[in-house]
């Protein structure tokens, strides 16, 4: 895989979303990488609704086999979900299972008017009928399953995409 410039992708993603932002647009970031990205987009796009955060640990479909994720974080949706135009933000789109879990969790807060998905990178290998409306980069070939691609944030807030071999 060629080196991806996370900062450039982030700017591209913001420009894709910008024409569609309305006063009713609300962003919800999925922990951890998706939330960092959502924080950046929220500022960059001047979103008026407060930023939401979702940790999908309690909605994952592998709880029965893998148990509870260590150190789950607090989900917080500080705007009224009923009638909101929500953009879910994640760093990497893969099987679609995280998005499914986040959708289920979001709907326990109310009935949004619409939900869209924004991701930095689509790495392929979807297992559910889920697609991103906004996507800065789609890998030409799906990544092997034993590789993990994640957004990293350094001390100055700069983004990089890190590819690691799962053990």
């Amino acid at each position, binding site marked *: 895989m060629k080196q991806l410039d996370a900062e450039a992708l982030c700017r591209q993603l913001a420009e894709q979303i910008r024409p569609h932002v309305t006063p009713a647009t609300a962003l919800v970031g999925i922990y951890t990488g998706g939330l960092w990205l959502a924080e950046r987009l929220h500022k960059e796009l001047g979103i008026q609704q407060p930023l939401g955060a979702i*940790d999908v*640990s*309690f*909605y994952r479909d592998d*709880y*029965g086999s*893998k*148990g*509870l994720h*260590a*150190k*789950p*974080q*607090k*989900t*917080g949706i500080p705007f009224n979900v009923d009638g909101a135009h929500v953009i879910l933000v994640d760093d990497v789109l893969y099987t679609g299972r995280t998005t499914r879990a986040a959708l*289920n969790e979001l709907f*326990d*807060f*109310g009935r949004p008017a619409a939900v869209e998905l924004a991701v930095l990178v689509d790495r392929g290998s979807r297992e559910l009928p889920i697609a991103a409306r906004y996507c800065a980069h789609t890998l030409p070939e799906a990544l092997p399953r034993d590789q993990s691609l994640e957004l990293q944030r350094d001390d100055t807030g700069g983004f990089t995409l890190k590819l690691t071999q799962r053990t």
Partner: protein
Amino acid sequence: MRNPQLNQHGELQHLLTLDGLPRDILTAILDTAAPFTEVAEREVKKLPLLRGKSVFNLFFENSTRTRTTFEIAAKRLSADVVNLNINTSSAAKGESLLDTVDNLCAMQADMFVVRHAASGAPMLIAQHLQNTGRDHIHVVNAGDGRHAHPTQGLLDMYTIRHFKQDFTNLTVAIVGDVLHSRVARSQIAALTTLGVPEVRVIGPKTLLPTEVEKLGVRVFHDMREGLKGVDVVMMLRLQNERMNGALLPTPQEYYKIWGLTAEKLALAKPDAIVMHPGPMNRGVEIDSAVADGAQAVILPQVTFGIAVRMAVMSMLGSH
């Protein structure tokens, strides 16, 4: 010997006591409880974690708060909850504890929440399940005799961490009837494990266990002396129903010497918090003005208790 509460992977298999529970597991429960507190503010107060599981509340002894909060916790995790008050049930007809358990296992129980007047009853059930190869069924001790009340101890630790952040610079006083208190035993075990440098127990000699100082606590028989400079005051209920013989004169006399009043509380640090596991005997171990005062965190304890029980049950229920 393996800790009977942990499985071969070191995960929590049953929650029976806080005594001997490793610090990382204790901390993991508190960390896991934090995001569960948020669920109470949602429109739909439900998470899907225990969907399809059956939780049996086996209460061989009366309880309102503990049973109710366990029930709410299990229901918020989407479990099916069955409440059994055994006082009025099969045990009264002569059925043995383990026969009751076997019958409920035949009804596809996934978890037992057990309260029993006999110390060790939840452990007996856990061993029975293990000996019969039913490792998928979990036991949570909801209070056994004078032995332990681990979820109360955990919710107390959660409350302290919420208000004081760090355990390692605190002085904590446990006041009253330590002798009959399973709550106090769980509190002392947890406080010690979490690194609280000074745990004090304050009470009359007749209501403190012999050699209580061997638990690693400082003993005070003078309440004013014991409360000086403490960060946390944990009151205990005077357990009249467990007393036989002349352990104390009268409730009025007890209140005069051991009751927490505003005047005695003033000896603690100005930002000290006051806790009580409930049910409170107002005017016996605690004055109403203190129980309803600005330093009391007794009702937050109850709310946090739901999140802590959700954390315990969701950690058990995944395997």
